[in-house]
């Protein structure tokens, strides 16, 4: 039997190479189908990885609590419109919920920052020291401010990569320099390591951190002392995110004296929720890719079936001769199936090459990240075998069912 299969494969290759143009055109459907799938999947996977990286850049096991809308006489303002969250809320959370590793808070405003003759409009964040650890900010030079800085409302600042690039000349050391935020002088004590785009697509490095107390008292001119833009918390383990989030809700509802029939005046989001939104986007993409793949492989498969049916008719006499000298039905079935699979596998391999090249070209020209995984390539390969088998079955059976006498007499 192995000799039979080997020889049949060789015969199939020879038969197909007799008619190279025809075999090539037949394979084209599979080549394009597999190529498109590989290219699209690698673009999809690249996008997915980029999204996952952005979600990860938020920090580790992060929960964000945002102030909710404020309802005034039945008119609901937008999210964050209310100043309902306070530093006291944040401290209470830390005290009441053991699951939380850390809590922090932040308040932001866009302000003009000046260094010498350069200026930049950046987002200034007044934050608690813990905020920096929750969000996993690290430093390319210098270091963070401390609780003492917060207590003393020290005028110290941490600058993000984008801000540093815009305020300082190349080669100029930001750490130790004095910049002005809304005309208040601040000493730069650290430059943050870059994080890149956020999951919403904004530049996370266009940022300045100053101690929360300093921001409140010396820069923002806050109306309600102690109100925050958002509370941040983190848990030790990923599984703790959901229970911690629900405990946070309970604690804040009690502190805000909300009745059971009242809506929350805040919104809680966990890193997992944010990841899920991104995942569902990429799932939609995957479904679409799968649809494209199915259609193109279907078309390719029909092409193979069509050409094999032609081939069976052309070679009716040959089939008759083979039967006369002792070929059984399964021999004939095998012969045509192997031809079909040879076509689809050669097509599939070419398609893989085309797809990989296509992905590379996309990365080079459009700058989109692409990932070609071994699984994708294997799946494409297995799929092309399956297409060959599936669409070869009908012609092969048609050939095997020929009556040897009629086949021998066929003109």
């Amino acid at each position: 039997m192995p000799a039979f299969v080997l020889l049949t494969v060789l015969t199939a290759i020879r038969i197909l190479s007799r008619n190279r143009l025809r075999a090539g055109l037949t394979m084209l459907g599979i080549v394009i189908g597999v190529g498109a799938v590989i290219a699209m999947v690698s673009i999809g996977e690249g996008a997915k990885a980029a999204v996952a990286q952005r979600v990860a850049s938020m920090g580790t096991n992060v929960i964000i609590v945002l102030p909710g809308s404020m309802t005034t006489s039945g008119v609901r303002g937008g999210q964050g419109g209310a100043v309902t969250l306070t530093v006291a809320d944040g401290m209470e959370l830390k005290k009441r919920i053991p699951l939380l590793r850390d809590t922090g808070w932040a308040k932001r405003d866009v302000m003009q920052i000046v260094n010498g003759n350069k200026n930049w409009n950046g987002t200034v964040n007044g934050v608690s020291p813990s905020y920096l650890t929750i969000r996993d900010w690290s430093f390319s030079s210098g270091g963070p401010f401390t609780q003492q800085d917060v207590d003393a409302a020290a005028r110290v600042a941490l600058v993000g990569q984008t801000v540093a690039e815009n305020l300082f000349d190349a080669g100029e050391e930001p750490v130790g320099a004095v910049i002005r935020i809304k005309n208040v002088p601040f000493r730069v004590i650290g430059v943050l390591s870059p994080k890149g785009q956020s999951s919403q697509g904004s530049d996370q490095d266009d940022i300045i951190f100053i101690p929360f107390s300093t921001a409140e008292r010396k820069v923002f001119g806050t109306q309600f002392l102690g109100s925050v833009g958002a509370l941040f918390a983190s848990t030790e383990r990923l599984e703790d995110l959901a229970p911690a989030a629900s405990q946070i809700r309970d604690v804040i509802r009690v502190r805000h004296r909300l009745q059971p029939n009242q809506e929350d005046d805040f919104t809680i989001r966990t890193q997992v929720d944010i990841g899920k939104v991104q995942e569902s986007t990429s799932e939609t993409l995957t479904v679409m890719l799968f649809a494209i793949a199915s259609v193109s492989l279907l078309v390719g498969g029909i092409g193979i079936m069509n050409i094999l049916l032609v081939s069976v008719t052309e070679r009716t006499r040959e089939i008759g001769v083979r039967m006369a000298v002792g070929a059984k039905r399964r021999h004939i079935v095998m012969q045509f199936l192997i031809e079909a699979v040879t076509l689809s596998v050669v097509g599939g391999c070419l398609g893989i090459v085309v797809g990989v090249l296509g992905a590379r070209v996309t990365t080079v020209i459009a700058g989109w990240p692409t990932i070609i995984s071994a699984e994708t390539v294997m799946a494409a390969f297995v799929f092309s075998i399956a297409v060959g088998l599936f669409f070869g079955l009908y012609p092969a059976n048609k050939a095997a069912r020929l009556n040897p006498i009629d086949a021998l007499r066929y003109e």
Partner: protein
Amino acid sequence: MAALIRCEDLWKIYRLGDVEVQALRGLDLTIESGEFVAIMGSSGSGKSTLMNILGCLDQPTNGRYWLNGVDVAGLRADQLADIRNQQIGFVFQSFNLIPRTSALENAQLPLFYRGVPLRDQRALATEALRRVGLQGREGHYPTQLSGGQQQRVAIARALVASPSLLLADEPTGNLDTESSREIMAILDQLNKEQGITIILVTHETDIAAYAGREIVIKDGRVLTDRHTKPVLPLSHSEA
């Protein structure tokens, strides 16, 4: 000695639309091992149908057919394929070589389906080609060979599996006189030297003259059956 072929009351009825065609009507036939038989008859006499049944390509509608003592009627398609592969060699009027495939590979074909190792296939096919005088032409394709040479490849293909029966359906029908003579000489030699039973269908009397027995079929029955050459005592034991 048991007969190689024994047919009793063979019937073959085709139905073409509403018309019923009785191709064979109770034909009886016995052929001993080692005979060289010519079957003659006008077209429509039923001789092609008989050849198809004898070659196990077709089954009779009614009646019995024993080949080498085995009752062939009622065997499944795969079993018939095995019998054709091991016991029967075919030579056709139109050669029926597989196109764009070398003489050697054409001659290997029955061994290929028998599952013989490739090396043995090559050796046996080379030997078969040598026996029909085609040594040195193993790599030639059918289009590079003359009609007579193509028919010799076909004979090599029929021989390669050492069949006990060789069925030749108008083997010289597409050949010129010279090639016809060569082909018949080869068949004659195979019959005499190797004792292969040959059944030859022809309508040319000079071709039929190579055989030792001439059977004329008419209307699906044997019309005449006579020995044209003295029967070799070895292969014939009845009167």
